[in-house]
């Protein structure tokens, strides 16, 4: 996959991300962000909403972020935090076509587990996604979600317990 950084580097002057426009970033990284939104929320509409909210915030600070930070990491951090802290029950105007939920689950043996993920509280799900999908260490997860490393661990433990997943790794450093 092409990365945000590669996109940025392709026309990088003067800064690392200099010269990259917001639209280019969204076009290049949008599908990956939607996948991330989907794994966080488990729902196609919520995924699109979450990404768009985060992108709206990114666009407001684009000039600053593109030159200094890693825009993708910035968006993903916003998405994880937003997903945990904030959710609108009232559905706004639909921006995507409806996808049949669970269309994949019937075809895969792990589909049942995917369905059960939907039963977790949002923070627990976010911790699992950051740990097992984003492969981040507990310390990094703690920094992103603004909680302690111990809370990361206890949230993960509870979530794994609910899903009947045997927790193998209690401590996740940087390897």
């Amino acid at each position, binding site marked *: 996959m092409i990365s945000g950084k590669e996109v940025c580097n392709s026309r990088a002057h003067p800064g690392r991300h200099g010269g990259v426009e917001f*639209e280019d970033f*969204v076009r290049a990284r949008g599908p990956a962000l939607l996948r991330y939104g989907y794994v966080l929320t488990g729902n196609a509409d919520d995924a699109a909403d979450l990404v768009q909210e985060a992108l*709206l915030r990114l666009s407001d600070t684009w000039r600053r972020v593109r030159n200094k930070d*890693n825009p993708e990491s910035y968006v993903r951090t916003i998405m994880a935090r937003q997903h945990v802290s904030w959710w609108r029950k009232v559905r706004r105007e639909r*921006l995507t076509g409806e996808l049949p939920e669970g269309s994949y689950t019937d075809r895969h043996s792990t589909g049942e587990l995917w369905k059960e993920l939907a039963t977790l509280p949002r923070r627990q799900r976010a911790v699992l996604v950051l740990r097992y999908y984003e*492969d981040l260490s507990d310390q990094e997860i703690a920094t992103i979600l603004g909680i302690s490393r111990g809370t990361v661990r206890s949230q993960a433990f509870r979530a794994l317990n609910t899903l009947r997943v045997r927790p193998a*790794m209690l401590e996740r*450093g*940087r*390897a």
Partner: protein
Amino acid sequence: MRTEDELVTALREGVKGAPESDLLAGVTRLRKRRARRRAQFLAAAAVVAVAGTGTAVIRGAAVDGPPQPQGSVTASAEVSATVTATVTASATTSPESVRRQDAVAGELWPDAVFTMPAENSDGWRYRPITAISPTEVLLSAESSFEKAGKFEVYDSATGTARVVAEVPEDDRLKRYITQSVTVDGENLAWYAYGEQADGTQIRDIWTVPLAGGDPRLVTSRVGEDADLDAIALDGDHVVWSEVDGGVWRHPLGGSTPEKIPGSDGLHLIKWPWASDVADLPGDMERSQTRLVNLEDGSNVSVQAPPGVERLRCGPVWCFGRGSDGTVVTRVDGSQPPRRIQVSSGGPARYPILDRFLPASMAVYDLATGKLAAFGGTGTWYGMGVSSEPSAIYYWGATKGDKPDKFRVLNLAAVPPAQ
């Protein structure tokens, strides 16, 4: 019970149901709607304010919402084309497949696995950091939960621990936590996070001789320079990289840091090696493209084989995620990519000691192709928490989360491959 691997698979399979959406159109619509609502809200507020001040008109004029980005639409064509090309190419990989061979680490490498106490003489829990030698392990002993109180070294040959230093605290700072530790044969260095009274972040970089002594504050980084992502030692310098990229060095006895020339955009792996990818959210799909030796300035370009994501290379080996397991290549290209039937367990950043890959409750030896399972009776294991890839894995010698003793695998004690 299910395994963590099944959870990883469920997430990766589940995400295939992700939607497609015109995000730019969505963001534009969202912005307009926000601006409209904001205008309505401010207009309503203005009605109230008008009676008293008369400034409402000016405020009312300022409700156009955030500035619209003025992007160049035509320039994006090349970006989209690249994405398509990359995705298409992914179907063509057929790396040579390698079968896993299970063995128990303690039987495969008897000299590398030992038992040690899980608490120090104060009754503080140990948290292993990394190996210093085939028999010595650096530990932090925690006076309270996740608060490093002392650094100690445990020697498995003598079965004794010694204190290197007490970890200093800074009462003027809030949330002061030791964050990341590195060690070479001579010294120990770490950085601590703190928050100043005005809320700005500060990172203190400390060092102490491994032989023991009083920790010395090398430097404090504040504001924009405070986001560190790795730390290392280079003889008489302490070296660190920033989250935004860029590597700095500071003489242990000096007072001024300097940015290492040519280190823009780089992140330390383990001195002197640096990579062009950070450890940040979103890295899963990003592949490393450069491996730089900051000591001699040499720069190796690395490229993920088609269909492989998240390539990570140390000086010898690269590994990444293929559609069907982990794919391993050599940096010098001397072997074709091969697929190994192990799933990476945990945040696998870079090969450990240029030889090992973390797997789920096991470690994979790239030199011999053997998979060494931890075994044991416990249901958890831990990985050392050093800044560089840690050479230490540990698990409970007995069941439960707080065993009296740890079983420790010291990868620095694994004999060279025959």
